[in-house]
């Protein structure tokens, strides 16, 4: 869908050679920290920005053309609705921009409001909505014309957990191609079949969430804490356990690196009991996309 995208603002490369594609029915996550180039990338996909280099193709139409724009539903990061108008009036206007009219438009407005759970508040002004309701109305405006590709730019930023779950539930049930940008790894892992990781404008990895974790996430870690007197004996015992690849001291205890943390944990607890060591804490740390990002860039995802 987009190939070799580059965009410079002055001498700074905001996007540098980004390529990816989203298949029909697929939810594709663009994961990266703030300022990584996600919004610039999707602005080029939507036709809001012209790339310095590279091409965008949407449903066979060149990016930025009226045909391509008609196939895309764009949900910007910030609320992009008129607060003085009702949700219905907002949807009516944006629907007309996509060529909807008459009964067809009225029907779509009702369907879309129902989809985002705002049927009973459609006649209220957007300005009277809570933050979460505004976000849902914002998504409704992007879905109204039944786009082939829905682009959501960080739709859950600043949203309460309840509304966040509602938004994720709505997006997950759509069944259309979705390009989803976020810096929340758990959202990307939950929603997206494939993920592209972007940092400093460059595409640094792409794959399924599990594939990325397997490839870049490292191994499980088991952390145990206990009294200072038992450090030597527990280090020796841990090294002899099956599946433990590395043992290193941490503050108040040890960290064991293993291929399968949940499987090793009972053996660690049993060994401590046999040695008469009382464990004050146990924790299994399973690799995630945060770890993938850390592994690939050397920095936290939310830096």
């Amino acid at each position, binding site marked *: 869908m987009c190939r070799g995208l580059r965009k410079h603002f002055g001498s700074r490369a905001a996007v540098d050679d980004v390529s990816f594609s989203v298949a029909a029915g697929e939810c594709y996550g663009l994961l990266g920290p703030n300022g990584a180039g996600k919004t610039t990338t999707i602005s080029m996909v*939507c*036709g*809001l*920005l012209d790339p310095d280099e590279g091409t965008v193709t949407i449903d066979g139409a060149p990016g930025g053309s*009226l*045909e391509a*724009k*008609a196939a*895309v539903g*764009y949900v*910007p990061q*910030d*609320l*992009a*609705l*008129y607060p*003085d*108008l009702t949700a219905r*009036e907002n949807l009516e*206007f*944006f629907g*007309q*921009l*996509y*060529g909807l009219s008459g009964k067809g438009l009225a029907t779509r407005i009702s369907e879309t409001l129902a989809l985002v759970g705002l049927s009973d508040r459609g006649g209220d002004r957007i300005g009277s909505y809570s933050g979460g309701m505004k976000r849902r109305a914002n998504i409704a*405006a992007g879905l109204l014309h039944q786009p082939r590709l829905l682009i959501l730019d960080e739709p859950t930023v600043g949203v309460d957990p309840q509304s966040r779950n509602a938004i994720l539930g709505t997006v997950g049930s759509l069944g259309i191609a979705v390009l989803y940008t976020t810096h929340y790894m758990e959202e990307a892992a939950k929603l997206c079949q494939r993920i592209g990781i972007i940092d400093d404008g460059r595409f640094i990895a792409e794959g399924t969430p599990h594939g990325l974790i397997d490839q870049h996430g490292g191994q499980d870690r088991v952390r145990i804490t206990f009294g200072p007197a038992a450090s030597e004996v527990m280090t020796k015992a841990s090294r002899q356990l099956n599946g433990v690849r590395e043992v290193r001291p941490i503050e108040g205890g040890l960290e064991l690196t293993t291929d399968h943390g949940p499987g090793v944990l009972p053996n660690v607890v049993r060994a401590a009991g046999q040695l008469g060591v009382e464990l004050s804490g146990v924790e299994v740390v399973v690799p995630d996309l945060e770890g993938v990002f850390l592994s690939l860039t050397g920095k936290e995802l939310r830096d």
Partner: protein
Amino acid sequence: MIRVIAVNELRRRIRDRSMVITCIVAPLVLAGILGFAFGGGSAGGTVRIGVTGATPTLISAAERAVQPPHTVVIVPVRQARVLKREVADGTLGGGVILTGHHTSLPDLLIPIVAPGATHSPGFEVVDRADALIGQEWSESLAAALASRLYAGHVQAGSTADLATISLTIGSHDLGNGGRTVLNYFAPSIAVIFLFIGSGLGMRSLMLERAAGTLVRMAAAPVRPLSIVLGKMLAILITGLTSIFVVWGVTTFVFGADWGDPLGVFVMCVGASLAMCGLGVFLTSLARNEREAFGVALIVGLFLSLLGGNLLPPGSLPQFLQVLSLGTPNGWSLVGFGRLSLLGDPARSVVGPFLALCAIAAVTAGLAWPRVRRMVRP
């Protein structure tokens, strides 16, 4: 698509009441102030115009010719000194002193053909600068007195004297003209208002950009030109509504005469188009909506001064009169002036209308490259 964007713009303006204020409330207030100030049908009470040096018969004849409304009363005053004092202290709204030196027919024609002329032998019009209604009626009364005296000098059926009359009036001799001031100031002030509305109206583009709705519009299958034209159409409708309200109220409530209705309509459209173009141009120069607001007000005031909305062009030096024709305000006043002051037919405003259209096209054309970038965030 242009219509859809324009309708949405108008709907939002109605919803936030800005349309009600700019199209109904403010024009009504403006028309009311103009009407009460210049139209004479106001709570200002009776205007008394004094006359000295005329016989009761002559005064009665002049009064029949002038046909003043019931709020204007013509009163004889014995002494010129008393008349001047009463005008000065406001007891009289104005007055006319016949000095008895109007011995020639050409002298009698001056108050008639050049009311308000600074030198009218035999006549002295006494007024105050801050009492325009009194000034107008004093000049009208002087003209009526002169016409009665003139009629008394010429025998019925005689044209001999007329053929020998040679009268030269320089532009420096002319005053405010004989027609009501309201006819001039109503369209003049309405044009200022129109400009402010248009200039400020295009701020909508910047406000929508800041609010994010412009991004959503730009992401839709809509051409940037359609977005800008939709906004301009809404501003045109807003501007036209406001000027039509001023026209209607000053005409039907205060008796102003803007001239041929078709011509007035054409001029309203032309002025609104020019102001839209200028509004887009000024918006394109500003970096944010606050700057656009300030620029619109400052340029509006500058153009109003130069174009003759605040100071009649005739009172400006020659080079400024020429420069005023470089402004939409100047051309608007040329058109409205032909209709209301000269009573010309609608076809007389074709030139000013085309000039206003040209201003609209040039300013909008200059603005387009920058506005296009603004529409594509």
